[in-house]
């Protein structure tokens, strides 16, 4: 599934809920299901600044594809981390870097998040792009 298809699938899933509570329950569920990050990665190095809850994101490159892992101490935030991982893990740095994360606007959670949370969202996305850029640059050097 391409990044776009995954985003469309998520948008459809969220469209099924017509009230905010179901949306949040779904995010909470995603957060609870997300595999916790190995505590040794829960360090300052992987902590994303700009979030009011703590968020850690790590990335590695496997066979030319990005593999993302992440965690948060707040479960709703963790659900959002889960969405990012679902969309971008397994994709090439090139595709990740080029994507505009438009699904965030379509699932209608951005408007429900406080500005601080919304900033956190922006910070997470920025970190993923930074990872993608670093991998991309490394790949281009090798070529």
């Amino acid at each position, binding site marked *: 599934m391409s990044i776009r298809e995954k985003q469309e699938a998520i948008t459809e899933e969220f469209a099924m809920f017509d009230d*905010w*509570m179901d949306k*949040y*329950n779904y995010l*909470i569920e995603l957060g609870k299901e997300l595999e916790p990050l190995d505590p040794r990665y829960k360090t300052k190095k992987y902590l994303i600044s700009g979030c*009011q*809850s703590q968020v850690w994101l790590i990335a590695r490159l496997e066979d030319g594809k990005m593999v993302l892992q992440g965690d948060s*101490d*707040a*479960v*709703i*935030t963790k659900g959002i981390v889960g969405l990012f991982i679902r969309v971008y893990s397994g994709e090439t740095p090139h595709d990740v870097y080029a994507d505009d994360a438009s699904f965030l606007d379509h699932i209608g959670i951005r408007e*429900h*998040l*406080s500005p601080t*949370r919304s900033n956190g969202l922006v910070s997470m996305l920025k970190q993923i792009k930074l990872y993608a850029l670093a991998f991309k640059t490394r790949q281009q050097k090798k070529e």
Partner: protein
Amino acid sequence: MNKGINNIRNRFPILDQQVNNRPLVYLDNAATTQKPDTVIRAVSRYYETTNSNVHRGVHTLSQNATQAFENSRKAIQHYINAAHGHEIIFTRGTTESINLVAFSFGERYVNAGDEILITGMEHHSNIVPWQMLAERKSAILKVLPVTPAGELRMDKLDSLITNKTRILAVTHVSNALGTINPVREIIQKAHARDVPVLIDGAQAMPHLKVDVQDLDADFYCFSAHKMYGPTGIGALYGKEKYLEEMPPWQGGGEMIQEVSFQKTTYNQLPYKFEAGTPHMGGVAGLEAAISFLASQEEPLFQQTERELLQYATRRLEAIPGLVIYGRAQNKSPVISFLIKDIHPFDAGTILNQLGIAVRTGHHCTQPLMKTLGIPGTLRASFAIYNTKEEIDQLAAGIEQAKKMLL
């Protein structure tokens, strides 16, 4: 609902709105209170009828503006019972008032090796300016510790005041926990050792009747926006004997007597500390806020807030897994709490969906949170217009958040 409170509520137009399709329940009053009709009108009336630059023109509007400006200063003077009008300096708020003193008092009285005493429950704005001063002057910052219940360790006060202590800065009421500190006693003890005291009154002014002469405070700082007034304006009260001795901290118009390129002489108090065109609209609003507070029946006002605090404490305590932080004997209407196994941001997010505005986080008191061993709390803080029904909604909202998050 108490009839008096219902009437008061009607005077706050902002409260009558929906947030996320629910009636707004505003419980973030320690961050900023909402404004009554009279304050909103005073600000707009100032711009509709009086606006002109103060102290600068012979023309009638300017004279009216100057008069209004100085009337507001007098209203503050009387409200807090300062000895002189010129002991009231208009500032942007508590933060600027503290910075003014830290800079200007620091320039005059603090030298290398001297000590500045603060407490473990201060807001960042009553910590950082003193740290900056300590750094600038190679002085030492000392901290009076806090008990687990959130009260000052008064037993440690005497030993922390030394003959090197140049100033003691303490909050009257804790914004994070609601603790009302025994500032009168603190001031007495400091004065016995010739140490002047700055009181951060940001959280006290909306709830307590403050008399700076009775307290014998040397400096008292507050923000209009936390006491039903507009944002961007506040005041510093300072005893004449210190303000006279302290050098100006910002240079510009209004604060001078005579300027030449060789030497500038400074204006008298209070203008020495009021460089530039002041926030005149805000000053008009602040006067209206003072009138609003002064027009409240003191015992009824305090009793209403005390009842809100007691009722909220009882309702929240009954929720399994909820822990209240800040169990001081003497508290203003603030409840800081955590719910077992729930991150405060998650709970705050759900409450927001229910139209309930609370604050989450460290409340600009990171050192205090560290002492309590927590990253932050949820904080519900009440004002005179809040109701028991709103507290019921908060309790129901917390139950709902628990159901969703656990």
